[in-house]
C-alpha cells in the first residue's frame, strides 16, 4: 500500500504545527483524523442539498432520506449484520452504552442479578453499569486482567452463571491495546444465556468486525475513531432484542399514532431514533466506511502490525521505559512510562516537536490502578502513520530524557 498516497487524502497533514513542525499524530485511540472524502460528504450536504430527513416530500429531503438509508445499509454490511433493522444511529459509543443500559437492561434487573464487565474497560463501559448496580442492588463482577493484558478466561468460565444478566466487554483495551477474544466469550455466555455487549470503539479503524461470527447481542462504536465525524455512532442489536426493548428516546419520528392518552411505536430501527438525527454525521460515517473499504484489509493489517512491532522494539530500547501489558494480540496502541519523568511533562515536550500523544489515565482509572501506574503515555497508530513518525517519537523521548536527567 502506498501510505504517502493514503496520507495525502488527509488535509490536516498539509500544514505545520504552531511550532513549525510536521504534525505527527499519535493519538488515534482517542480520535482519528478525517480524509477529504468524509469532509466533502459533510460540506456537500450543508452547502448543496441541506434538509431534514424522514419527513418532507420535497427535494432535497427525499434525497437525504434515501442517503441515510444507504448509510444504514453500509453499516449493516460493514458489521455483517443480518438486517438494516439491527442498525441504530446514536451520538457515539458512550451514548450507545447508556441507551442499552437504560432501555434494555434496567427494566429487567432485580436485586441479586449480576452484571459482568472487565478490568480493562473504558469509563464509558464501566460507570453506566456501576450506576445500574447502585440503583437496582445488582452486583458488578469484574473479570481480572493478567499482567499480559489478557483477560482471565478461566475466571470468566467459573463466574458466568444464569445470574449474569449482561456481559459488557471491550473488543480491545484503549490503554493496553490487547484485543479480547470475543468469540470465545460469547461461546461461554451462550451456555448461561447471558447477552453480550461489545464495546467496539477501539477496533473499527483497524479490524474488520463480523457480528454474526462473534455472535454478540449488542455492539457499539463511535464514528470519530474510524475517520468519521464527531457526534455520531452506532448501536448494533439483534432484532429480537431491539424489538422487545423500550425506545432509546421518546419524540418525533418514532411513533405511529399519538394521542394524549397513549402512543404506539414504529418498527425498528426507527423506534429507537427519536428526533432529528445527526444527518451530517451519518453521511460522514458513510464516507468513512467507504474510505476504509477502499483500503486493502490485508495491507492495512500488515502496515499497522509492522508499525506496532517497530514501535515496540524502538521504545523498549529506551532506558527506563516500561510498556504496559504484553505483545500478544496487540492492536496499534502502546502505553508506557519512563522512570523519573511524568507523562504530562513528556507530552509537553513531544508537543513542541509536533508529536501528539496522550498522557494520563485514558478514562480507565481502575485499569491504571491495577497496573499500579498513576498515569501513562499512550501512542496509537492509524493507517497514515509511518516508521519515520516513530523514529521522531523516539528521538524526542531521548531528548526529553536528557533534559530531565
Amino acid at each position: 500500500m502506498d501510505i504517502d498516497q493514503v496520507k495525502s487524502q488527509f488535509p490536516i497533514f498539509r500544514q505545520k504545527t504552531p511550532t513549525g513542525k510536521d504534525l505527527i499524530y499519535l493519538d488515534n485511540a482517542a480520535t482519528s483524523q478525517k480524509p477529504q472524502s468524509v469532509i466533502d460528504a459533510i460540506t456537500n450536504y450543508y452547502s448543496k442539498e441541506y434538509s431534514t430527513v424522514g419527513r418532507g416530500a420535497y427535494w432535497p429531503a427525499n434525497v437525504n432520506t434515501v442517503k441515510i438509508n444507504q448509510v444504514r445499509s453500509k453499516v449493516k454490511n460493514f458489521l455483517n449484520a443480518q438486517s438494516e433493522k439491527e442498525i441504530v444511529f446514536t451520538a457515539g459509543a458512550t451514548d450507545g452504552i447508556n441507551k442499552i443500559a437504560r432501555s434494555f437492561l434496567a427494566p429487567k434487573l432485580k436485586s441479586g442479578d449480576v452484571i459482568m464487565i472487565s478490568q480493562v474497560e473504558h469509563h464509558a463501559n464501566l460507570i453506566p453499569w456501576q450506576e445500574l448496580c447502585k440503583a437496582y442492588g445488582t452486583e458488578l463482577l469484574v473479570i481480572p486482567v493478567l499482567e499480559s493484558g489478557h483477560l482471565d478466561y478461566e475466571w470468566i468460565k467459573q463466574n458466568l452463571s444464569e445470574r449474569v444478566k449482561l456481559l459488557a466487554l471491550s473488543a480491545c483495551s484503549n490503554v493496553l491495546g490487547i484485543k479480547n477474544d470475543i468469540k470465545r466469550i460469547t461461546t461461554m455466555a451462550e451456555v448461561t444465556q447471558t447477552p453480550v455487549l461489545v464495546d467496539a470503539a477501539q477496533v473499527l479503524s483497524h479490524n474488520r468486525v463480523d457480528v454474526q461470527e462473534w455472535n454478540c447481542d449488542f455492539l457499539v462504536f463511535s464514528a470519530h475513531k474510524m475517520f468519521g465525524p464527531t457526534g455520531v455512532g452506532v448501536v448494533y442489536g439483534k432484532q429480537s432484542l431491539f424489538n422487545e426493548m423500550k425506545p432509546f428516546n421518546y419524540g418525533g419520528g418514532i411513533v405511529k399514532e399519538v394521542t394524549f392518552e397513549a402512543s404506539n411505536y414504529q418498527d425498528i430501527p426507527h423506534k429507537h431514533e427519536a428526533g432529528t438525527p445527526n444527518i451530517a454525521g451519518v453521511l460522514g460515517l458513510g464516507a468513512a466506511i467507504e474510505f476504509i473499504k477502499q483500503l486493502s484489509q490485508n495491507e492495512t493489517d500488515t502496515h499497522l502490525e509492522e508499525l506496532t512491532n517497530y514501535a515496540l522494539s524502538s521504545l523498549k530500547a529506551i532506558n527506563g521505559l516500561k510498556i504496559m501489558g504484553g505483545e500478544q494480540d496487540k492492536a496499534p496502541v502502546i502505553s508506557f512510562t519512563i522512570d523519573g519523568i511524568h507523562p504530562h511533562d513528556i507530552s509537553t515536550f513531544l508537543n513542541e516537536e509536533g508529536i501528539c500523544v496522550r498522557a494520563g489515565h485514558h478514562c480507565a482509572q481502575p485499569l491504571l490502578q491495577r497496573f499500579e501506574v498513576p498515569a501513562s503515555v499512550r501512542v496509537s497508530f492509524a493507517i497514515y502513520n509511518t516508521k519515520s513518525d516513530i523514529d521522531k517519537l523516539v528521538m524526542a523521548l531521548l531528548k526529553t530524557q536528557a533534559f530531565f536527567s
Partner: protein
Amino acid sequence: MNERLKSLYQTVILQKSREDKYVGKLNDFSLEFRAYNPMCGDQFDLQILIEDNSFKCLKYSGSGCSISRASAAVLCEHLQGVELDTVRQKVELFLELVDADSDKQPEELTDDENLLAFAAAREFPERKTCADLSWKELLNQLDTLNQS
C-alpha cells in the same frame, strides 16, 4: 531544546520539583485538603498547621508532573509563616501570575524569582492546571473557612 520549553522548565521548576523539603506529612495540622486534577491524574494532599494566626508549617505529598510538584513545593515555601490575613492576597497574586488573560505583565506583579518561573505557564495554557492546581484548591479552602 527550544526557548519556549526552556522558559517553562527553568531551573527553578526543575529544582523545586525535586526538592523534598516540603514533602511529607505533619503530625499536627489545622487544615488538610486534596488537590486533584481528574483529567491527568495529578493528586496532592496538603497539610497546613495554623498557629498564632499564621501558616506555621506546610507539607505536601502525592504525585504529579514536575510543574505541579514544583508548584506545590513553592506554595509551601511561599506561604510558610504568612499571616492568615495576607494568605488570600498571595494566592490570588500567584493565580494571576499564571493567567494568560491577566492584563498585567508578570514582572509588574512580583519580583520573586521562584514565583516568576511559573509565569511561563501563560505560554502553555494546557499546563496552567498543573501550575495552579494546589493554589486553586487552597483558595477554595479559604472560601470555605470564611463561610464557616
